[in-house]
């Protein structure tokens, strides 16, 4: 059950790369990306750096996108609670 396993893996904490997760779930990376977007649509994840540029407008020499062009996600409260339920 891909999305549930994905949520459990993410909830272990720390920073996960797409490559790590796809390898652990034995799925192609594009399928993982689709799953992440679906989890975000369902409110379990949120994309962190989508509106990065707007936040940096207040800073004269701000350089917000330190992590580069890749996307970055974190668990929402709903996602964290679901992961706990799924792990129990």
């Amino acid at each position, binding site marked *: 059950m891909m999305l549930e396993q994905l949520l459990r893996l993410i909830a272990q904490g720390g920073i996960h790369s797409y490559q790590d997760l796809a390898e652990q779930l034995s799925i192609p990376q594009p399928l993982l990306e689709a799953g992440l977007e679906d989890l975000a649509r369902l409110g379990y994840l949120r994309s962190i750096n989508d509106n990065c540029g707007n936040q940096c407008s207040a800073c004269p020499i701000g350089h917000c996108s330190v992590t580069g062009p890749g996307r970055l*996600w974190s668990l929402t409260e709903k996602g964290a609670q679901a992961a706990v339920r799924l792990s129990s």
Partner: protein
Amino acid sequence: MPTSSSSLPELKNRGAEVLAGEVTLTVALAGQPNVGKSTVFNLLTGLSQHVGNWPGKTVEQKTGVYRFNGTTIHLVDLPGTYSLTANSAEEVIARDYIIQQRPDVVVVLVNAASLERNLYLVAEIVPLPTKVVVGLNMVDVAAHEGMNIEPQVLEAALGVPVVPMVASKNRGVQQLIETVDQLARGEIPYQPSIPEIRADHRQVLDGIHRLVADCVPELYPSEWIALKLLEGDDEITTLMREQCLPADRWEQIHEILMAHEDAVLAIASGRYDWVGRMIRAAVTRPRAGQITFTERLDRWATHPLWGLLILATILGIVFWLTFAIGTPLQELLDIYVVGNLAAVATNWLAAAPAWLQSLVVDGAIAGAGTVITFLPILVIFFAVLALLEDMGYMARAAYVMDRFMHLMGLHGKSFLPLFLGFGCNVPAVMGSRIIDSRRARLLTILLAPLVPCAARMAVIVFIAPIFFGRAATFVAWGLIAVTLVVLATVGVLINKWILKGERAAFIMELPLYHRPNLRTIGIQVWQNSAEFLKKAGSLILVMSVVIWALSTLPQGDIHTSYLASVGKALAPLGALMGLDWEMMVALLSSVVAKENSIATLGILFGSAEGGGLEASLAGVLTPAAALAFLVVQMLFIPCIATVAAIRQETKSWGWTAFSVVLSLLLSLTGGILTYQLVTALG
């Protein structure tokens, strides 16, 4: 409410009707946006199109007619959708049409090069009461990307006909229509593989199905209704609750739904597992050279130890480049541009009042002009950062830093916002919004100003070479390391006492390494440099004039000025760090913007006379005092923009003041300890 059900036998009967003679078929074209639906539609219908709106919606509806082999095919172009969940008007239109109008065949066009994302929609359509043909479009693009797709294998796995095609070149479109016709006539076997959900949720679904089975609206498949209720589909939930189900029946269903609020994950997982099976069966992706290159590099760049060493080395090279190229250029600008500008202004204003000449030369040019000489240093910073980012390295830097933080015990939700602070502290404070717990968010905000931002680094790059010559690179590197140790120490305490070991999770896309795009880098450097110059020409210029006024008034003598009064009040504190009152005033002025400390020194020591600011500083500061100054500068009160962000995010003047006091105490303690220790060690 009338009820209905649908099944494959019903569809087979339709096939028999088609076989009986010349008939009309209704075929819907479904698919995600940009998969080539319009191309196929236009190729088939040509001029016989009708364009209008879907009933009651502002979404465009296109229909057309195509005649083939004695069969008239009415084509309906459904709106592009990613799924059939009621997320948008387009998705509702597409699913309502398929369910209520029951087209004879639905052609789902998929992008072969992005099959993993496209098959999800197929997974949602195959359980519906209609026959499906998959148009495997853009097979040329998939082949170009090295994908090997076997349409026959995919067809066998899906249990529905699959037609490979390149619609943009009119390849496979005729075969698609032939397949649609044959399927409608029942000449092709049709046994679709349907996604399944986990056994425990299957029981729940059956339970809901039993409760709704005799109440579903006409044409709606009852099991689909049960599935959508379990998924939490808003539209179907409202429809069933308000128009179909008796109140007591709804209460029973509601209780079941509340007990299985994550069932949507099980259902979506079932579809993803189904997609995964199809992909494994029919698709192979030869490992492209770029991927293996990235993997090879990442073995080192994301390694817990080597990754950190690579990061530290890159940081060292950045400073070395800055000192080797940026500092000499900065000195040249100082001598030839600022110096000459001051001389020209002095000549032009020879007849003007002395105060005006002093304002322009000793205030505006010595202050803002000196800051503008930073430009080569910052251009190098911006260029290297943009280069590393564009190549795809910066994501790796964040990745290995998290592991490093974890080793030190400083891991948690505060990591990412803090990492953003290396560019600027403002996004670091703003980034704390990702933290749900108010207490953890507050503490992250308090830590953010301790991250060395680009502006502070520019001040280091200006001052370090004056006192430390060739060792400046190591001093700069060490100052950042010390700042990070302070940050980590405070962070460890926070993690231990407040976050209680909680470890937050992030998922990061590590992009493929690729050759940097010089245009992208150039644009980024230009934008950041233009912003810096704009700031130097506005905020720093105004502050330079204010500092000049405070250093001149009331008697025209700097030593009896208002600024001197403030500076001398701070002098006893400065003496503990080997800093005289001018240096204390420079620190104080950095609160407006970090670079302002150099502008203030330019005004107080003069940049155009006696060898410039560098020579003046070398004359009044010992290396120990200079080091103490830099330590204080690194940890000092954040700039006004950051303080404003802290106020905005904490919504508390009390916590804003606390942040300022915390930075003040840490910086002064650090400065005093540095000066006393270095002096004691000789």
